[in-house]
Every structure is written in C-alpha cells, then in structure tokens.
C-alpha cells in the first residue's frame, strides 16, 4: 500500500534532483520494477529515450488506490517510519521518483495486479495528475514516459545525442542486471533488441554478454565470508585492467554504489599489480545486515555510509587479494600477458607494429591451447581441468599434482611453479643487460630481470615480516605528543589496535593530542611525527586512509627496489638460475610491486602469426 510519508521522514530523506536525463528515468523505473518483484524487465527506447521510454515488468503491480498516489511526492509503499530508514532493503524508498518524472514528462502507468481481473491506468503530464481509469492489460506494470523535459526546454536542450543516451542506458542496465541474475533484462532501442540477459545465467556469463566474452578470460571468482558480511563476485586479473573505472563495480546489498572508501580499499589490494593510470576491473557484491549501511546519503542513492567502515573495506580487500592470489597461481597462457589487453601500450612487447589482430581478443582465443571458456577458471571443477590441459599443452609429464582432486586446491598444489616453472633448465640469452630471453617448448619467454628481482625481494621481505610473531617496537624515551585535528585524532584512536599490531603505539593524551609511545622497529629511524603524518595523509573519507600495514608494505617496496639488481647489471649464469629458482616460489609472479609485468610469453603460434607464416 502506498502511503504519504510523515513530514519528519521526508525531511530526513536526502531529496534532490532525481531526474537529470533519460538515463535517470530508466534507472528509477527499472529499480521500481525490481522492487515490485519483477522477474522480467523490458526497456524500450525511442530516439535514445528522448522521444519515449517504456518499461514493462511482470511485478506485483499497482492497486487502483496505489495508482492514485503514484505521482504524489513522498508517497512510497516501502517506508512508513523513521525506524524503517535503518532497514532499507529495497532500491527505492524516498517516494520521489515517479513524482519527479511525472513533473517533467508525459507519463502513463498501466498496471494490473496478478490477482485482479482488470488493469487500471493513470496519466500525469507535467505534474497534472489525471484520474485512475480501468484498462485492459496483462499482469504487471507498463510505464511509458514520453517527451522528457517537454515543459523545461532549457534542460531538453542539454540532452545528449540519442546514441550517447542509449550507450549510457545500456551501461546502466548491465550494471543493474549484474546484481539480479534471477531477473531477465531486455533492452530494445528503436525496435531493435540491443541487449538480452536471460534470467538464471551465471555472473560470468552475464558479464560476458554485457561486456564481451574476452573479458571473462581475465576474471576470477571470489567469495569471502565474515559472519554476517559476505563479499563475492568476479575479480579481474591485472591483464583486465583498463584506463577508466567503468568496470570497477561494487554492489552493496544489491544496490550499485560509487562509494569512495570501499573503492579505495579495493584499489589498495590491487596496488602492487597495476601500473599508474590503470583501473582494475571487478564485479563485487558486498552483503551485510541492512541496518549497518546507510544508503540515504545522496539523492541518487549511489553513495553509502557504513557503520563498520573498516570491516566493509577489509572484507573487500580480502576478496580481491584472494582473487589475485588465485589468478597468480593459475597458469598463464601463451601470450597471455598481453593477449587480451589490447589497450595496453604495445611498446611493452617491444614490437610497436604488431598487427592488431595478433593480440586482439579473437586471436588470443583461437591461439589458446586451453579449453575455450576462461570462465571455467571460476567454477569449482575448473582449476584442475585447466591445469591438466595446461600440463598437457606444455608437453609436461603428468605429475602427481595433476591427478589430485579438483576443487579449490589450485593455490596450494598444481601451479606453484607459475610462469617460471622449468625455466632454469632452459637456454637463455641476456639482452641489453636487462632482459632474459628463454626458449621454451612452445616459443619463447622474455623476463625483465629487474622487475622479477624486485618481486622476489618484495615477497621475501613481506613473508619474513609476516612470519615474525609480535612486531618489534622501538619504544620512545619521551612519548612524542602531537596535536591533531579532532577527526584525525578520532580516526587514529579508532585504529589504535591495528596500529599496535603493526608496532605503532599511541595513546589518547587528552584534548586534541595523542602521545606516541613506540614506533615499529622496522621504521626505527623515521620520525614518529612523520609516520603519523603519512598515516593521515590520504585525504577524504576515514576508510580511505592507508592502513599502517600499507606503510609497512611501502617500506618493503622501497627496500626491494633499492636492493634489486638493476637493468644494466650483467648477471652471471648462476645468478640467473638462482633468481629463477626463487621466482618459482612467488605468490604473485606476474608483476613487480609497481605493477609492471615481469614476464612476457610468445607462443610458437604467435611468432608464426607475427612473421605471417600463418594466416590469422
């Protein structure tokens, strides 16, 4: 039942401009359909939505009484009291969207409840609400929005081209659809079906359908549970990284969000795998009790606030980290490092004029010695199948590990050899005192010695650090007292325990001050004030701050960089063999801590194509 919200509730709801363009109309209406329990939603556009937008669903529908209130501001069936605001599980809750849309367009709603014999309709043109009349229609709701901004010509002029609007809507629908695999979505533009996402498909399939199947090859399925918190979805390997963040998608309780703090946490997890300017690809859903998240922060509802920000960030960080670990443990396919990332700078491979099709997605797929569906990597029977196939492809004898039971063992068993397995015994050439070129059974592998050594040292330091139980603390003779902004102080005290785990001992010193009693012995010579400043430096949201751990990681990194053999150091053969032996043990062999690749693979087939011995 739709009720008019009491005024105090209205005031608590961040109202604001809801409808900015056809895109926002579609967003609001599709969300309404989903809230109404639809299992099928069809969006039809004419002229990119500028002429008309039609949304049909098979959801619960409106009663005639509901229809009367549909266009009344702050009429919602989803929220009755203030307490409800804390338990929002539906996408809509303001009772604002239909009223806003009705005020700037000509809208007709036709709706029939499943248990009713007939349907009813109502219209609203530029805010003028018509009467409710019976009409014939199938169960569900059809909402037609024509002439958006007909009564506000200024805004109408700001509409983008039909193509731009349609592209945004397509994107939006894909994004909404990823959160609801149980719902069938269709997008029709000027009578042509543009997107069809059948209900019941897997997340990977849906991502493939919406964003291209080549992408799926570089996604890993993850799931992490911490009591009532769960993070699951698909995490892109570094190879999937892009220049823009359009595929960095996070859903919180089924709602797409653009929350900065959690996005930062995810980025942190990717930090050492991406080069500057690269954006990770991920499709992650965070589920948590509804009363621990506040979505009522921004009128478009894409921002959220968490009761336990650290926990939310932590679980996402963990999910991504586990995905990256999994990806590193899995075998890298021939040419994989560059194959499916056509937007990576070609120059990296050292062949500036490579024919486009060679490393294009299509080419990579047909070259692939592995079963086609990279998505296999993500289902539970996947890893061993992939692994066996890869072993077979390498011509390697079937090792005991290949016969092991499948699920979930990929990290511990099969491919801990990673991309460097077997290279020690290979012939090689040191080129430019910087690259090592190996001949393999299936072509060649080029290793960047500096990047690889950096990674080896980085992991060595990190593991040593992790292995040490309590972190040694250099205590201070005189506690250093710092005056801080109240929010900084509050944040630091919130982090007190984590910081103590990392060796930084602080205490409340009253007023605006804290006292530093000890610093991590590892960072023994850095002034305590500088440590704190580094911690506080990241601007913005609390959760976006680097954790003490990150600073320690940073420290490892710079140690690794300083100690690493440089490009330009000529290596002795024994040194190279040693480096490779260590490289086999790496958790993340593919990238240096800055995200640069350590190794590029060229298969025989790629080489043949490159020299035009083989027609693509």
């Amino acid at each position: 039942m739709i009720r008019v919200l009491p005024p105090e509730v209205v005031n608590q709801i961040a109202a604001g401009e809801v409808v900015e363009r056809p895109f926002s109309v579609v967003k609001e209406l599709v969300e309404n359909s989903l809230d109404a329990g639809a299992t099928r939603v069809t969006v039809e556009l004419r002229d990119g939505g500028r002429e008309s937008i039609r949304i049909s669903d098979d959801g619960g529908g409106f009663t005639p009484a509901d229809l009367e209130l549909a266009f009344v501001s702050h009429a919602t069936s989803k929220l009755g009291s203030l307490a409800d605001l804390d338990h929002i599980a539906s996408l809509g809750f303001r009772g604002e969207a239909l009223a806003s849309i009705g005020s700037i367009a000509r809208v007709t709603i036709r709706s029939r409840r499943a248990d009713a014999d007939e349907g009813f309709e109502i219209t609203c043109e530029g805010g003028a609400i018509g009467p409710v009349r019976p009409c014939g229609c199938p169960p569900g709701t059809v909402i037609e929005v024509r002439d958006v901004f007909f009564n506000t010509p200024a805004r109408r002029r700001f509409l983008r081209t039909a193509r731009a609007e349609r592209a945004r809507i397509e994107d939006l629908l894909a994004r909404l659809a990823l959160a609801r695999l149980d719902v069938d979505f269709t997008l029709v533009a000027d009578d042509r079906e543009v997107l069809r996402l059948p209900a019941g498909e897997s997340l990977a399939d849906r991502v493939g359908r919406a964003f291209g199947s080549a992408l799926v090859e570089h996604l890993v399925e993850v799931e992490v549970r911490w009591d009532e918190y769960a993070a699951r979805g698909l995490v892109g390997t570094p190879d999937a990284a892009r220049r823009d963040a359009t595929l960095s998608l996070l859903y919180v309780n089924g709602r797409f969000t653009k929350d900065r703090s959690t996005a930062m946490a995810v980025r942190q997890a990717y930090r050492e795998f991406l080069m500057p300017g690269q954006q990770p690809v991920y499709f992650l859903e965070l589920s948590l009790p509804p009363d621990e998240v506040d979505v009522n922060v921004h009128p478009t509802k894409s921002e959220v606030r968490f009761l336990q920000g650290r926990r939310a960030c932590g679980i996402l960080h963990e999910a991504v980290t586990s995905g990256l670990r999994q990806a590193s443990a899995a075998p890298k396919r021939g040419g994989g490092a560059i194959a499916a990332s056509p937007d990576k700078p070609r120059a990296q491979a050292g062949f500036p004029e490579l024919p486009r099709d060679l490393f294009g997605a299509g080419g990579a797929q047909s070259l692939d010695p592995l079963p086609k569906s990279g998505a296999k990597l993500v289902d539970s029977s996947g890893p061993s199948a992939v692994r066996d196939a890869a072993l077979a492809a390498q011509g390697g004898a079937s090792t005991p590990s290949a016969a092991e039971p499948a699920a979930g063992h990929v990290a511990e068993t099969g491919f801990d050899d990673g991309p460097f397995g077997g290279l020690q015994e290979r012939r090689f050439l040191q080129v430019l005192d910087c690259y090592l070129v190996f001949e393999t059974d299936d072509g060649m592998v080029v290793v960047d010695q500096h990047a690889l050594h950096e990674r080896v040292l980085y992991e060595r330091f990190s593991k040593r650090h992790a292995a040490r139980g309590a972190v040694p603390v250099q205590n201070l003779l005189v506690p250093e007292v710092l005056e801080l902004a109240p929010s900084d102080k509050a944040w630091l005290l919130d982090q007190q325990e984590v910081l103590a785990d990392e060796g930084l001992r602080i205490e409340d010193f009253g007023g605006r001050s804290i006292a530093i009693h000890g610093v991590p012995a590892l960072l023994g010579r850095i002034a305590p004030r500088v440590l704190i400043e580094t911690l506080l430096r990241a601007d913005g949201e609390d959760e976006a701050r680097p954790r003490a751990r990150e600073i320690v990681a940073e420290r490892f990194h710079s140690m690794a960089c300083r100690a690493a053999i440089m490009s330009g150091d000529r290596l002795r053969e024994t040194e190279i063999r040693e480096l490779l032996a260590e490289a086999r043990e790496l958790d993340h062999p593919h990238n240096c801590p800055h995200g640069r690749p350590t190794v590029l693979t060229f298969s025989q087939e790629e080489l043949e194509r490159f020299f035009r011995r083989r027609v693509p």
Partner: protein
Amino acid sequence: MKILCDRQQLQEAFTVVGGIPPLKTPKPVIQSVLMDATADGVTLYATDLEISAKVPVDAVKVAEPGRTLLPARETSALLRELSDPTLTLSGQEGRTTIDAGTGSFVLVSNDPSQFPAEPEFKQGVEVEVPVREFLDMIRRTSFAAAREETRYAINGLLLELKDGGARLIGTDGRRLALCYTEHGGDAQNSRVVIPIRALQALSKAVSDESSEPLRISISSNQIRFALDGTELISQLLDNRFPEYEQVIPKAADSTIEIEREHLEKNLRRVAILSSGEVRMVRFKFEGSEVKLSAESSGIGRADLSMGIELNGPGGSISFNPDFLLDALKVSDRELVRIDMTDDSTPAKFTLGDSYTYILMPISGS
C-alpha cells in the same frame, strides 16, 4: 686591497670558514668569504645568516688595506691545489687576483659592501671550558640528536649551564646522550639549544691543541664561541627540549659491568646478522655472562657470549645495535656500566666519568 701571504696559513684559515657559506641560497653574495685587510692584519669572515665565523690569518703582509669577496668554493679548491709557498692576493673592483708562481687566477667577486655585516652580539652569560673536553662532548652527543624535524629542537643540542657545570645533551626520542664538564665563569644558570651545524663548524674551526680555554658567551638569542682570535656566532634554536632529567632512570634492577672494546667488536659481529628488516640485537644477561644474539630469517643468526660482572637478576633486553655502537665508539672507557630493568624501561650506559647514554629498548620480540 693587496696582501702577500703564506699559502698554507691562508688555506688553514680558509678551512675554518669555508664550510659556512651555503651551497644554495637566494642571496648569492653569502656564497663568498669576506677578506678584510687592515693595518692590524687580515681576517676571513663567512656567514649563512644563522651561523657566522671570523678567523685571523697568520703570516701576512698587508700592502694595501681593503676588503674583497672570495667565492668560497673556487677559492678553497684553488688553495688546496696550489703548491706555491706564498701568494699575492689583490682585489680591484669586481675581481680578485691570486698570483702564485704557477700562474695567476682571476676570480670574479661581488661588491664587498653588499656583504652582510657581522651580527652584533649582546653580552650575556659567559663561561670558559677546556676546549678539548668540549669538542669531545660535541662528538659524544651530536650523533644522538634528531636528524628530522621532530617536536624536539630541530637538529639541536641542549647546553645547560648549572651550578658551575656545563652539560651538553642530544636526543632523538629513542636515545639520549649526555656529557658534563666543569666550567669557570659566571655562576648564572642558562639553558639553550644550539644548532648541530654550529657545533660541527666549531669542531672544525678550533684546534683541540690550544692551551687557551674556549670562551662561550650566551645572549638571549645567540651564542658565541671564541678561541685564539677565532670567533663563531650562531643563532639559538627555539628552546623546546624534553625534560631530560625525567628520562634518566634513577634506579635499575640490574647493574652490569662489561669491557667496552670487546663489547663493541662483538656487537658489530652479531649485528651483521640483523641486517634484514629490523636492526635488533638481543642481550641476555645471566650469571657471569651476556649472550648476544641476532636473527634475520633468510639470512641467518648469530650467537655469541662474553664475560660480565652482573649485580641483580639480569634478564633479556634488545637494542638497535647501531644506536649502541654510535655511543660505544666515541667512548674511551675501558669498562662500561649498564643499568637495566626490563624491555620497556630505558637502559642507562655509563660510558665515561662524565658521559651517560640512555637507550630505549626494542620490545615485543
């Protein structure tokens, strides 16, 4: 201006002031050294606007009094490289010519009237200390001062004059070094923080062989050191320095006596294997020996023991070996005394009759 001088004497005088002109400055004129020739003799004067030094040049003949500016870097390099016993320096407008047997060198010089005047020093507390001892005090405390900007006086040492004694103290919050000497002079108390750079410049400027005492005068914002005609004046730093007396433990559970040289050598040996991520050496005092150990996973471990004299229960305590070595190597004591309690209480090292070092242990290992 025209003078005839002994090259070596001039070079020696130049080293006293040559380090003061800043390498980078928005005021390029102070990158020179001012030479002032009068009927009484020749002096060199340099300043970086915080620290200034004046030194007389011996064995000169002044043919024509006057002033000239010598570019610091080039002049000191020239004086080093030339081997002629005597030099003639003449300053005309805009240049200074150095005539040596080898050849003649013309240096472009700024107008001496642009050079900042010597700071006016207002007389304050005045004391005299044995110069050699004071230089030792600087050496034994300056390494412990903070290098970065912390809340402690930036890069400064505390000089405290109290009850006829002078104390010099350096700390970076992890350790504290304190030296003491008796002084002759005013009984007035005073507490000032001196920039390390000034003390380093002083160490270079005065000879520890001088039979004269070093004269120290303190005004409200400046300190002056004077010896044998050489004079160094420095600004004082903001007087924020921790209450060091509170840091020095008054009592300890255990007292250890240990041979310094032996300890220093062994500590160096053991520290090699703490070169990984955390610099840390563990001391385990027990019975009549101390076990030193360090470990660096992936690198190795070291264990070593040496004899001690222990009073009290002993126990384990860990230190950053570098922090301890810094102090051990500037101590001249044969036997070192350690007062320690546990791994969260500062340990006190008595490294000389008037040299105390407080070091905070590393805990949680």
